[in-house]
């Protein structure tokens, strides 16, 4: 698996944990998947934790959708 595929798996697993009924699509923003602000915080913190990153939340604030989040995080991991 590539780094991006690893990161994508972690992101999708974390979304599924916080939003069990969400149908995850990479083109949607977390908000569009049904995540309120607390859910979004929990998803992002969980992903950062699983990836062992200590990045500020503000660094991933402006990503437009799930795929873009994966891209940003994959770049940080590698």
């Amino acid at each position, binding site marked *: 698996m590539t780094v991006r595929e690893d990161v994508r798996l972690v992101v999708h697993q974390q979304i599924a944990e916080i939003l069990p009924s969400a149908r995850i699509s990479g083109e949607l923003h977390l908000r569009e998947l049904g995540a*309120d*602000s*607390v*859910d*979004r*915080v*929990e998803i992002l*913190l*969980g992903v950062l*934790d699983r990836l062992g990153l*200590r990045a*500020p*939340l*503000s660094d991933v*604030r402006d990503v437009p959708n799930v795929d873009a989040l994966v891209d940003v995080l994959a770049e940080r991991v590698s």
Partner: protein
Amino acid sequence: MSAGIEALNVYCGLAQIPVRSLFEGRGLDLDRMGNLMMRNRSVGLPFEDPVTNAVNAAVPIVDRLDPAERDRVEILITSTESGLDYSKSVASYVHEYLGLPRSCRVVEVKQACYAATAAVQMAVAYVASGVSPGAKALVIATDVALVDERAQYAEPATGAGAAAVLVGEDPRVLDVDLGAFGNHSYETLDSARPSPSFDIADSDRSLFAYLDCLTNCFEDYRSRVEGADFATTFDYLAMHTPFAGMVKAAHRKLMREFTGTAPAEAEEDFTRRVLPSLAYPSAVGNLCSGSVYLALCSLIDHLGDAGGPQPDDRARVGLYSYGSGCSSEFFSGLVDRRSAEELAAMRIPDHLAGRCALTFEEYAGLLPANLRCLVPDQDRRIDVEAYEGILDRARIDRDLLVNTGTKDYHRTYEWLSYE
């Protein structure tokens, strides 16, 4: 040298609306109430403004001072993001209606919801410095809400009112740990009030900044305080509360980062150390500049309720203040039996329970007038009697200051007698 909070009180208005009624009235998704963790929001009435809120919060404190003590109030600072004029301070009116000495320094400060803590810390340092032995400083955080349906899910979480904090050498309410603090500030536009009649907010930018600042503040605190540990140094925590669910998320974040505790395992710690501080904020909404002090009141009135130390046990509280823009601080202090006794005299539970419960229709009818509260009209008359239907349903047990309008831009006030 001891210095800290000698007396503390809040005023959270005469009316409130249940958050469920507001969700239903606006057609908001009821599933989102769970993470919000809010029960009611305080609602200002059109004759309440930053001055009346400040005075009504501080009168019970000032009335308990004897004349000699009142003469030692050497500094009055109002902290507000609800300013009334580019030049004239809210504090100038408050000074008059509280009858404070003319030898008092009078000033207003602004840094969104953080400014009151900056003022309290500067007041504590003034008292502790010994430059004027026996001096007191009164800091009053006071705000009004300018929200309506445009604020969406922030509307049910936005409160109104004031917190009055008397700082002196006999810290009966909070004995501040001198020199134990951590700060974090940087420029961002997460929320702001660009005009006297509306707010702007970017919720993710603001919540993420709040959380990033908390981590950085605690790291700065830890760099100053040898051995400080998030899990064991603080018996309780009281934080700025945009909404109660946010504080829960903040606690989980720090437990994860500084103790390695998984979110599911942080629940017991949250219930014991944090939940007592959220009873009042979840019944009032975000008190803006006074929010962390409303949380402190809640904590002190609920010491030991959820398994934490009882009032007879001296307990250390970690406090976190955040203001958009942004600036933030983590600091700490000690509470004990005297804190509980001092605050009990303010009868905050009676005050909150005595607010009139509004229907959604009554609430919606108040908003247009409330949104004009800060607009600098040259002449305006506010008919307090027009709101008798609401006043009659509120429990009022003392005289309250009300705003009757403006005359040549000068705000006019009267005392509303409860008898």
